[in-house]
Structure formats: C-alpha cells, structure tokens
C-alpha cells in the first residue's frame, strides 16, 4: 500500500491527472489505506507543489494542474474517505473578498485544504460580506479564509471582521486572510487571527489555529 500511496503523491506533484485518478481507484481496490494516510499524502503532495513554486521550478499552470489532479482524485476517493474518516480536519469557509476576482490562489488553496482533510465550502470570488456570514453560520465553520490579492481589499476585510464581531461569531471562529501581498503588519492592522501567503503557510496556520 505504501508504494501505491507514494506513487499517488508523485502523480499529484507531477500534475498527472489521469495517473492520480487511476491510482485513487487502485487505493480503493487495495482497501487497506486509512483516511489519514491518504490525506497525509495528498497534503504532502500539495506542500511539495507549493515548494516547487517558491523555488521557481513550478509556475501557475503547473500548480493548477496539480490542483486539478487533487480535485479529480478526491471525487473518486470521497466515498472511501467518508467511510473511514473519523477526525475531520475542520470546517472551512473560503472565498475571495468583494472587489477582487483573483481565483487562482484561492482555487489552489481550496484543493490543498481538501487534500489535507478539511471540509471546504468555496464561495468563489467577489464574495459579499453577507454571503460569508450566512455560510459561516450555516455550516458552523471553524475557519474563515479570506482571499484578498491586493492590499486595496482592506476595507472589505475590515467590514467582514466588524460584522463577525457584531454578530458574536468570533469566539468559535478563526479568521485567516491570505494573498501574495499579505504581511504580519497587514494581518495585525486588519485584526485577523492569522495570515498566509502560499500553500505551505496556509496549511501551517490552519493547523496551528485549530490546535492540531
């Protein structure tokens, strides 16, 4: 089994969509992998993809190719994981804030979070404050991930945080903002619980805030 899982991981890293789907079927057929083993390999694969982007080996199309491999594999693996998964990674609501339509980074992060075992509700791009709040309440989210590519989206972030506060939703919810231009200063200024700039830092901050 470990060999199939390792091949599966390598197929995701290589963006081999057909290969990763075939290996997903093989994992189910073999039937001895735990849900945790599968999500660990998926998560490690997307971290590797993120590292290759950081070092300039991968670019956006390569990351999208791996994200597609994750999505297609999860579609195959979902029933198998559902039967075996006892500890959910947490419930995440994610979207790109109003005034911003950048979806590449968000899509990649959504795939990486799903790969890591989180239940992810992707609201898309240019998402209004009301839509974020409604979804957080509806699914009783543990994490709210706000994708905002540029710092000009600051007013939108502040509005969401203010409404969360007004409605008493901050106690059980951690808010993370993310985007290439984010910094610790920016995160402090707007008052989020954490920030991330890429796949690796997103997975790390989610784990940290949920105390995993």
């Amino acid at each position: 089994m470990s060999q199939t899982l390792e091949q599966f991981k390598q197929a995701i890293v290589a963006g081999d969509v057909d290969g990763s789907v075939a290996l997903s079927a093989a994992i189910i057929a073999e039937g001895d992998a735990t849900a945790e083993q599968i999500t660990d390999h998926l998560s490690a694969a997307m971290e590797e993809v993120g590292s290759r982007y950081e070092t300039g080996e991968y670019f956006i199309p390569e990351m999208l190719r791996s994200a597609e491999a994750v999505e297609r594999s999860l579609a195959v693996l979902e029933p198998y994981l559902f039967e075996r998964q006892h500890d959910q990674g947490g419930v995440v609501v994610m979207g790109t804030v109003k005034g911003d339509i950048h979806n590449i980074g968000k899509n990649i992060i959504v795939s990486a979070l799903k790969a890591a075992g989180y239940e992810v509700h992707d609201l898309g791009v240019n998402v209004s404050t009301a839509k974020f709040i409604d979804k957080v309440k509806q699914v009783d989210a543990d994490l709210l991930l706000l994708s905002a590519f540029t710092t000009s989206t600051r007013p939108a972030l502040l509005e969401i945080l203010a409404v969360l506060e007004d409605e008493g939703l901050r106690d059980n919810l951690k808010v993370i903002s993310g985007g290439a231009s984010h910094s610790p200063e920016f995160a402090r200024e707007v008052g989020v619980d954490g920030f991330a700039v890429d796949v690796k830092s997103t997975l790390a901050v989610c784990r940290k805030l949920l105390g995993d």
Partner: protein
Amino acid sequence: MEGSSGAGREPMTPKQRFQAVLAGDIPDTVPIIPVIDGYYAPQVIGRANDECFMDGGCLAAALEGALERYGYDGTLAEMGLGSHPNVLGCPVEVEGNDVPLVVDTVVRDRRDLEKLAEPDPWSERKMEPVRRLVDSVGAGHAVLGSVRSPFEYAATVRGLVGFMTDFYRDPEFVHELIAATKPATLAVGRALIEAGVDALVIKDSFASSSMISPDHYRRFAFPAEAEVIGELAGEVPVILHICRNSMPILAEMARTGAAVLELDSPVDLAGARRVVGEGIVLKGNIDAVAVMEKGSVADVEQAVRVAIEAAAAEGRFILSTGDSIPLAAPEENVAALVEYGRKYGRY
C-alpha cells in the same frame, strides 16, 4: 547623472524628450512617464472610478488633470476602464473606486470561439478619451495608447484559471484562443494609431515569469507578441509591458520588435540593459506598491536615484513606475517621483 554634463542641454518639451530617447539621442533630462491610468487618475479631479468607467470625457479630464498636477512628460490614453474586456464582449462592472471586474467569461469551449464579438474599438465612443487627449495635450506631451496583447485578451475571454489549465489539458486550444483574439489587439491598436497616439503600449501582464514558465512564454505569448508588434510597429513605436519578473524572457522580449520594454520592479535594470543591448529603450521600474503606495518620499527619492544610475547613463531610458500606481499612493510620492526624476535625470 546630476550635473554630469556641465552646462546641460537646451531645454526640450516633454514630447521632444520622449522622441529624443526613441531616436537614440540624449535628451535634456530623463523623460518621466509613470503608469497613471484610469484607476488612479479620477481621484485627482475628485471623481470616482465608476464615474469615469465608460465616460470618455471624465476619463480624459482625469488623465489631463493628473498630467497637469504632477508635470510628467506623457500620458496613457485609455479607451476606458471597462473597454478592453468589453471589446470582445466580456461583461465588466465597477463600483465606486473598486477595480473593474470582468464578471463573466465568454469562451467556455471551442464552440464559443465563433461567438466572440467582432472587435469594434470605435463603438460606444470608446475612442473619445483618446482623441480628446491627443487634442488637448498631444502637441506638447507624449500620448501613449494602451492595448492588450492577444495572450491577455485570450486569458480574459476564457478566464485565467481555465486558460492556464488549458496549457497542459489542451494546448492546441490555447493557440486557437490566441489566434481568435489577435484581431482585437490589431483593431484596437489601429484605432489608437488613427486617433493620433505617439506610441502604443501593449500590455501582456499574464506572460510574466512570475506567472508562467519561460517555456510557456516562448510557446504561447511570444509568437503573438512578435506578430502583432510586427504589424503595428511600422506606424508608431511599440512599448511592451510585462508585469513583475520578466528577467528570464528579456532576450525574447527584445526580439519582438518593441522599441521600448516597460519593466516592473523585480527586474534589475542594469542586468536588463546587458541582456537587451543598447538599441532598445528601457522604461521603469519604480515599485508601484512597496515604494509608491507604501514608501515615504525618501524611499521614492532613493528608488528614482537608483533606477537612473542603473539605466540612464547612455540615454534610452524613461523613468516610470513598474506598473499602475495604486489608488492609495500618497500624492506627495507621485510628486516626488517627478521632482527627483528631474533632479537626478539631468544630462
């Protein structure tokens, strides 16, 4: 550079300065043409972006107002914030001072290629602000018409995620998309030339090495750039803009036929000069966010001095921001760009 030529040269008009640099001559001072567009300029005349969105009069007044306030040497002449995606039928919305959003893509698969709107840059008075700017400031200042590359138009009509996913899933479709959007670049470029611009800026933002590999650039973006520039550069000089890091593809950019390469802040200007040789004008590359939006006046001064020292000694340099100046950039920083550009840019 400051004081390097003793008595200095005869004062030139802003337009002469720009023309001198393109002709390979040494101007009186380094020309300054920051990337101030319809996103930054409306606030200069107290208007919001959505007001100038499709109102050519408002947009032209805003660009004129910014030119007058800051006193740089040339202005972008845009069709209007929403017009570029709109040229090919993509619906665009803008609210207040938000960035205009392409709210839907128009090409979901091959069959949609046939449904692409016929590019018509003259409709809906799209050329109105360009004509007005040529009339109002074109005699003394450089007027640069702004158009998107086929690669960028293709990404817009397909949606960036779908477009870049196609690089591996269906590369032939990427070629077909680019071929289908090439007429839009040519139609807009020709309309701008007919309206009287001094040069064309062809923006190819997504071709950046911060987004796609140099291999993909060579395969998809470069051939289309070279083809449209080949068709348009006979009429007016072409400025090729690629965002963020373009260092790995500079040699190819220099072979597109562009007279000027507009370089963003991650590019080392001295290194770029070594790669492209002496014949090409470099335009850049003050960091629009770190320096212009978030930096101090002293940061602007330092960045201007460094850029001029790195690239201006032998002429063929236009001082500029690497990309569009953000809405939140303080007024004093924009003023400092021009002030210190004049101070350190004297020949």
